[in-house]
């Protein structure tokens, strides 16, 4: 099972990122668990300074911006290797 994590304390951007991630999964036809990380310690421990952060399968792929569903779908494929 693949894993998408959204790092952010629950601000508007983090919720938008989570929605985009769900849309990306549907677009790409990929099954994955989505986790929303709101604990500051864990966010900081991942080395993310600006929220929201996007983590795919344990790798931080984007910080400080809200990638579109299309961008995330692409990231799902490129980070598969």
């Amino acid at each position, binding site marked *: 099972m693949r894993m998408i994590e959204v790092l952010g304390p629950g*601000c508007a951007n983090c919720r938008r990122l989570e929605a985009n991630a769900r849309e990306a999964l549907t677009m790409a036809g990929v099954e994955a668990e989505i986790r929303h990380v709101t604990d500051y310690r864990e966010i900081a421990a991942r*080395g993310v300074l600006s929220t929201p952060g996007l983590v795919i399968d344990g790798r931080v792929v*984007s910080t400080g911006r809200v990638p579109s569903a299309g961008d995330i779908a692409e990231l799902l494929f490129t980070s598969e290797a």
Partner: protein
Amino acid sequence: MTAVALRRLHLPFSLVVVVAAVAWLVAWFAAAPFASWFAFDLLRLERGSPLGEAVAFFAFDVPKVLLLLLGIVTLVTLVRGFFPPERVRDALAGRGSLVGTAAAAAFGIVTPFCSCSAVPLFIGFLEAGVPLGVTFAFLISSPMVNEVALVLLWGLFGPGIALLYMVAGLAVAIVGGLVIGRLRMERHVEDYVWEIRSGGAAVATSHPTWEQRIRDAWAYTRDLVRRILPYVIVGIGIGAFIHGYVPTDLIVAIGGPGNPLAVPLVVLVAIPLYSNAAGTIPIVEALLAKGLPLGTTLAFMMAVVAISLPEFVILRRVVKPRLLAVFAGVVVAGILAVGYLFNLVVPA
């Protein structure tokens, strides 16, 4: 049918950008004639009458502020994309106090900051070895010398006041950072912060294309403008009312040089206005025109953007009450100093 045809007609992205830029310029130069036509020809209001001047102020300021926000925030966001906080942190780690503090304050101008990022940013800086005072210089400067405030100050008052504001804001951030650094308050940071290890920060730095960058910047700007537009319009409405109806004598009596407590008074008024910088500036524009002294005006602006109760509440998670109090005290003292200093140098 036409809609489908249009959607198929994939315009080259560069053409869209050029068309948007030209449309912006045309609208910019049409704003002033439009406002005077709207108030004095269409509505047949009398030039010089309170209502006529108020309506003209409103009809000129709304398109002007909107255009400034859309155009320049997009550009600023584009530039900021090249200075992510991760890069700033790496540049600041292990610097000496004076150089590091000044650099941190300068980076605050170009680095995006939202108060929901304050905590991860704070932890990330300290964890990478950025000194506490340098970190606070950044935390003071980043919201205070913020792009929306600077752009609006520039557009409505000209470059002189915008630059004064920037220099004053940087000075507050540098002095504040140096003071906090000198007080050696590391033990007033919550203990768990020192225990976090990110393990060398395995953050993949993405390399977006120019088209992605421009699209990102535009999406961010559209969002921001949509969020703050109601405040801007209310602010311009209040500004228009002041412009047309409030007598200059009243403003001078309350905020002028005759009242030595004017600066702390406006700072107090500004505290609940947090995050409404865009709505506040049109009010300030009207007040300044009515004789509010420059220092008092700058102090008011700074207090609106830099004294944020929500941010203090969020920061309480990582710093103990005494350090939080010192942080707040340093910021307030800095703003008051700027107000009195400018009033002294540039008398009304």
